[in-house]
């Protein structure tokens, strides 16, 4: 399964999957009436998915629902259900309803890299993919099957929204879909691919799922569209500016992964799924052991001597995990915290790392939200957490305080503490104040805590500490700058280092950066049977 995205292997997924009418008709006895109806119906369905409809999608730069399904599943494995259902028989006094088969959505199951996955794909060419009663029933049916079988479910959205003609029936349809997502949450991985519009209530179906993929320029999500914005606020805004992939990947954080075209989106999803277990009882699939060296001296050279110089924490990640296995999530949103899946000795791990290169790696509102949600996903699906820490603290300032960094930072704290999967921390450099506590500290339930010799563990940075403790002396000194420099040096030597924490047991070991992978591997082995007794309760009250 390695190098799934290699173009030579994966861009040739075989023949286009097609519904049941592919059966060789000439072998059949056509005289019986039942068979004749059967064949006629198949022919009618075949006609419905005509090349003209496909061309309409292609001219917008989109694929049809059939093509998406064919790209997603291993060749020949997809089985469609409910292909012949027709729209609900509601008296139409306003607008029109096309009498089509399938009611604008394809649902079914198949294999992705050999594993069972359920999926639904909305078909924009049929009544704009609008969600009517029957359409929603089909989705709800496949959701319930996925939950029962304990397999991931993929939703491919390309829909104009609720079907106006059907009124409250379609609204209740949405509600039952949401209810199913919530009931399955934390039991099976649920992933949404936005491949066209998703507006109004429709946005909450992807928002409730675990991960959202979007396609640049052809997909958008918003609660109220540009027309309403124009009417109510008199602001001119395009769909793309309001809720395009780029906006949701960078500003709102709604989209976890964005790609430039649908083929890349689907190929990436297939790779993404290879990191996840099928459900919360199983463990993620294990790949063959990797030849990545356990001892790597390059790790000693990444963190600069000057504590004010940034570096790219992704370099550290890439040297610690199996070669090329790091799959970053939400790369563009709150980039001061890096999250993603990777493999160590072929086993999936979740990485949470402060990024000194962006905003000095501070924790702020967005990065806390991003981290907390990822930690909870990993915990639900038995994925061990590796935390790489270099955090100067929480971002100060009235903007963050007024928007509630207290509430948001608490989410991260809650998520880390609540997680019962193996939790390993490596302190690379700064570990100051409340942020040190939050980033999976040992006393918060972290299983193993290592520190590099470059680590600085203290209540606050040297400058701040000196200014508070020696305010009087500094004010009276003849040469305050010189005194300050001396005190800062003393503080760094005596307090802001990893050795005090090590000698008092607040971390487990100060390690040579070169052996970090080796230490993580043995810690993961030691934790492989970790079991935590959690108190019985309905659920904790996580700060939201």
């Amino acid at each position, binding site marked *: 399964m390695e190098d799934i995205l290699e*173009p*030579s292997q994966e*861009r*040739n*997924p*075989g*023949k*286009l999957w097609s519904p049941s009418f592919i059966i060789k008709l000439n072998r059949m006895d056509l005289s019986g009436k039942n068979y004749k109806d059967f064949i006629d119906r198949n022919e009618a369905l075949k006609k419905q998915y005509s090349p003209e409809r*496909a061309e309409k999608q*292609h*001219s*917008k*730069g989109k*694929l049809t629902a059939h*093509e998406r399904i*064919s*790209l997603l599943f291993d060749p020949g494995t997809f089985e469609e259900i409910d292909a012949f259902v027709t729209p609900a028989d509601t008296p139409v006094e306003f607008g029109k309803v096309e009498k089509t088969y399938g009611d604008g959505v394809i649902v079914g199951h198949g294999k992705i890299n050999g594993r069972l996955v359920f999926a639904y794909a909305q078909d924009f060419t049929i009544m704009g993919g609008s969600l009517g009663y029957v359409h929603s029933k089909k989705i709800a049916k496949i959701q319930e099957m996925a939950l029962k079988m304990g397999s991931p479910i993929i939703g491919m959205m390309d829909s104009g929204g609720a079907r106006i003609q059907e009124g409250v029936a379609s609204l209740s349809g949405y509600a039952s879909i949401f209810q199913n997502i919530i009931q399955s949450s934390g039991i099976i991985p649920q992933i949404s691919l936005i491949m066209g519009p998703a507006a109004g209530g429709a946005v909450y179906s992807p928002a409730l799922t675990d991960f959202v993929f979007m396609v640049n*320029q*052809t997909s958008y999500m918003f609660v109220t569209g540009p027309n309403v914005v124009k009417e109510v606020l008199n602001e001119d805004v*395009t769909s*793309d500016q309001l809720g395009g992939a780029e906006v949701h990947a960078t500003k709102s954080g709604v989209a976890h992964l964005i*790609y*430039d*075209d649908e*083929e*890349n989106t689907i190929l*990436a999803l297939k790779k993404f799924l290879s990191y996840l277990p099928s459900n919360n009882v199983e463990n993620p699939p294990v790949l063959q052991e990797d030849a990545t060296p356990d001892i790597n001296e390059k790790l000693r050279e990444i963190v600069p001597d000057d*504590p*004010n*110089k*940034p570096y790219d924490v992704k370099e550290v990640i890439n040297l610690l995990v199996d070669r090329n296995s790091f799959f970053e999530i939400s790369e563009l949103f709150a980039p001061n915290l890096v999250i993603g899946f990777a493999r160590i000795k072929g086993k999936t791990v979740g990485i949470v790392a402060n990024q*000194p*290169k*962006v*905003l*000095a*790696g*501070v924790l702020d509102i967005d990065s806390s939200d991003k981290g907390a949600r990822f930690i909870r996903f990993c915990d639900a699906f038995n994925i061990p957490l590796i935390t790489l820490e270099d955090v*100067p*603290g929480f*971002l100060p*300032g009235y*903007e963050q305080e007024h928007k509630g960094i207290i509430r948001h930072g608490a989410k991260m704290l809650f998520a880390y503490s609540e997680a019962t999967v193996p939790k390993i921390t490596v302190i690379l450099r700064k570990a100051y104040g409340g942020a040190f506590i939050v980033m999976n500290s040992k006393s918060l339930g972290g299983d193993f805590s290592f520190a590099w010799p470059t680590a600085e563990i203290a209540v606050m*940075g040297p*400058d701040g500490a000196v200014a508070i403790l020696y305010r009087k002396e500094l004010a009276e000194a003849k040469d305050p700058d010189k005194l300050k420099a001396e005190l800062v040096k003393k503080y760094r030597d005596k307090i802001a280092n990893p050795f005090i924490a090590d000698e008092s047991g607040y971390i487990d070991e100060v390690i040579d950066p070169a052996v970090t992978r080796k230490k993580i591997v043995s810690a993961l082995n030691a934790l492989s049977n970790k079991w935590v007794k959690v108190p019985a309760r309905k659920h904790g009250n996580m700060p939201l």
Partner: protein
Amino acid sequence: MNMMNIEKLIAVSSSGKDFEFEMPLKDKIVIQGEEYDIKLYYTEESGLYLVWNGKKYPVEIVKSKQNKYEILFNSISYSFTIETPFSLQRMKVLKVNKPSVGNISVKAPMPGKIVDIICQKGSKVSRGEPLLILEAMKMENEILSPIDGTVLSVSVSKDSTVMKDDILVEIEEKKG
């Protein structure tokens, strides 16, 4: 159109040149009607290299993201994307529809002090290239260009302090 049986892929270079090649990859490739014998190798010691006419040429993949690649070949860097016939068609459709972003102002992400200015008025920058260095949270932060384009103006000077959302640099988006 049946896009599922892909027999060829197209490399589109940043200069807009297309180069088609057949799938699965063959050791012989055809350039302007002439056939060349080219092989790619990878070893742990010498990395990736290409053999042509009995000579070895080192190839380095500098960046690869999704279908975008930047490679270093014979010390010259090339950037290109790999497209299928369908995605190439899509690219062309969307290029026509895409509205121009116009000018973009790069704002300070947090309060701090400008310690170095790397770009100048009129300099060409590409997405992800550092424009200036802002010291905040006791750390030197690189402020990166969000788009490909030309610097229109730099509104701060070295050692000046800035507030959050102060405009630092204005960039005009590259056309095309």
